[in-house]
């Protein structure tokens, strides 16, 4: 059943349409029916969006939903509910599940789980290699036929350059992008954090920045050689941003994403804020949080459009996965429910333009994986076509309290931090699916 909703008086921001004005948005019959000033609709429920931003539903290119196989960390139901509350109406699910979608039948079973349990639109990503082991290619054509939007072995890079070249060539022929976790693991021993002053002080093994840059450079050359669409997952270093900029200047179809965590935090989060090193396992993420210089380069790259998308890399874990010695702790940050808050806090601080932030959460990611071809209107507010709308209060202040999250993953280094900017309401398929309690919409 669809509501008739009138989202009144918000700042309607749709970078894809070049729209930025205080307008009303009418949602009816499952779609955005009209955008304009002074709209009226008999019997419509009115959402007062004064002071708020009204944008297309957010699109996430990189999330770990954990089901099947790791239901103690998260399920499709819990994690997509968390996505919903974070303003994400379309989510691409990474294939590091058990079993992993490396062939048609496994993919089909996952698509079925999604159909039954997902609270937001979910697009699956297929494996590059069988069981993500990096040895033999997955059934790429079968996966493409089954509806994957990209290929990735995320969590581990495709180490073998010959295999990577072949995977890119096949992906190109199938018209799909390959999203690569760029790292050169041979350069470090499962580095638990960024290699630098902090890792050396704490006595932790580190991942050098060059391990990312080396892989990015290699993969760009392989993409150039095959003509494939290469998407660099979660860039974290200044040099990787430069390499992507060079690739784009060459006209190569290379895109990339950055996580809110890497935009907002640095390696200092591992050491904690006090005088004693905290070894905060909630700040352990792969690739690791980098230096302040890297963080600033990521923000610049995002502003300049070198970075196309903000992707969460939402990675929920059970408490016991993190409540161990730092080097034994699982990698990953639960991010859906804090992502918008961190991004809009950066905007409130003047570190990121709000228009650019919205683009990187909507049209940018949709374009990377060609998602509008699969679900028309995704990533934009096109009257008669688009179905998803998010309402954000950019001035709302709140304190991160993971205990209250719906995600099974409470693993965030942001607990107790004050953020500025919160999602207030989310409309999917023309229906108001969630609104923040106490919000006056």
């Amino acid at each position: 059943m669809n509501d008739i909703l009138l989202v009144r008086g918000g700042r309607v921001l749709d970078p894809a349409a070049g729209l930025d004005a205080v307008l009303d948005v009418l949602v009816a019959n499952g779609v955005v029916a009209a955008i304009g000033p002074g709209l009226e609709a008999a019997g419509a429920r009115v959402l007062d969006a004064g002071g708020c931003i009204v944008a297309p539903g957010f699109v996430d290119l990189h999330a770990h939903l954990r089901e099947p196989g790791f239901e103690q960390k998260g399920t499709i139901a819990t994690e997509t509910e968390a996505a919903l509350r974070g303003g994400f109406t379309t989510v691409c699910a990474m294939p590091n599940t058990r079993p992993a979608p490396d062939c048609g039948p496994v993919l089909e079973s996952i698509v079925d789980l999604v159909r039954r349990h997902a609270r937001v639109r979910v697009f699956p990503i297929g494996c590059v290699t069988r069981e993500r082991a990096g040895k033999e290619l997955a059934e790429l054509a079968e996966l493409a036929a089954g509806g994957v939007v990209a290929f990735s072995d995320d969590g581990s890079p495709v180490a073998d350059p010959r295999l990577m070249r072949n995977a890119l060539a096949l992906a190109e022929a199938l018209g799909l992008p390959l999203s690569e976790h760029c790292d050169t693991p041979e350069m470090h021993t499962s580095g638990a954090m960024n290699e630098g002053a902090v890792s050396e002080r704490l006595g932790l093994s580190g991942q050098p920045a060059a391990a990312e840059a080396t892989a990015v450079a290699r993969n760009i050359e392989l993409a150039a050689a095959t003509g494939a669409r290469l998407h660099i997952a979660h860039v974290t270093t200044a040099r990787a941003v430069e390499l992507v900029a060079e690739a784009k200047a060459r006209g190569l179809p290379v895109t990339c994403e950055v996580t809110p965590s890497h935009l907002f935090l640095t390696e200092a989060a591992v050491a904690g804020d006090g005088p004693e090193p905290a070894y905060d396992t909630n700040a352990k993420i792969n690739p690791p949080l980098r230096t302040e210089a890297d963080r600033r380069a990521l923000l610049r790259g995002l502003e300049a459009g070198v970075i196309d998308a903000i992707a969460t890399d939402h990675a929920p874990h059970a408490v016991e996965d993190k409540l161990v010695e730092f080097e034994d702790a699982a990698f990953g940050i639960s991010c859906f429910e804090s992502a918008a808050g961190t991004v809009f806090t950066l905007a409130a601080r003047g570190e990121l333009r709000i228009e650019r932030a919205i683009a990187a959460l909507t049209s940018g990611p949709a374009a990377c994986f060609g998602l509008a071809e699969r679900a028309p209107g995704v990533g934009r507010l096109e009257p008669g076509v688009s179905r998803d709308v998010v309402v954000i209060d950019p001035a709302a202040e709140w304190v991160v309290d993971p205990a209250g999250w719906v995600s099974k993953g409470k693993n965030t280094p942001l607990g107790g931090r004050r953020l500025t900017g919160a999602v207030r309401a989310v409309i999917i398929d023309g229906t108001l699916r969630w609104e923040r309690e106490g919000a006056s919409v």
Partner: protein
Amino acid sequence: MLDAPARLAGTAGGAAWTRKDLLDTDSLSREEIELVLETARSMKEVRSRPVAKVPTLRGVTVATLFYEQSTRTRASFEVAAKSLGADVVNLTASGSSVEKGESLIDTVRTLEAIGTDVIVMRHFRSGAPYLAARHTGASIINGGDGTHAHPTQALLDLFTMVNHLGSVEGRRVVIVGDILHSRVARSNAWTLLRLGAEVTLCGPATLLPRWFVPEVPGGGRCTVTTDFDRAIEGADVVMALRMQKERQQRGLIPSLREYIAGYQVNAQRLGRAAPGALLMHPGPMNEGVELSPDVAHGAQSRIEEQVANGVAVRMALLYLIAARSRA
């Protein structure tokens, strides 16, 4: 009841020990370090008595919890605890991997539940004592964690230096070897800098920190160099670190032979240090690698003294920490 604390430990300018745990040396103040040294002097006096034992920590239970082998450090703590009349429980966690179902947190909570007051912990993972300390009311003394810190070693090294030099302020200390992976080097650098020493960290480029130079506001200066022959010139203290043979297998150094040529402390090199410079080594030593045999057993070697001082310093720390928890 604690027995005659005033006789055992002074008050070092009024400073009192307030910490539940001893996890590292970078957070220690100058006053706290001096309190440890002063208390260690009293303990050394106790050790020199015919019956080197006092009942000061009677009724206190000290557990040694070692996830990594070290007969020396464990024995030193055990002797220290028993010299103060404490009961000692020794636990060895077998294997080098984390055993499922018996996590570090479970273990320290169990030790606390059976009445352990102080847990001396060695662990192959950097930062493990912090995790333990956050999850138990018992005091944690870090007996060495991964490649991070070894605070009791640093304090006993400092105690040894101060006994000979009076003060380390303005003194030049060269630490040579695998600095990058050395918890001893890190903890020594922090304590020495805090007391105003000039510290040089020296070793092959692959075994030196590239970004990290410890800094202590108002403290001494720290420099990092690959040139040992220049670094040792005029040094008051030369401290050599254990070189692990696996560094060669891991491609960090071309050969032990090349390491010896560039970084072994031998008579010729030691001759370039200040007259009477102290030669130190945290042990266990690979004789003929870090030190040539003649200097290892020569007049300037303080290696055996370090071991003896280790007991006094650990007595001091156990005393300060246990006294705090019973105050």
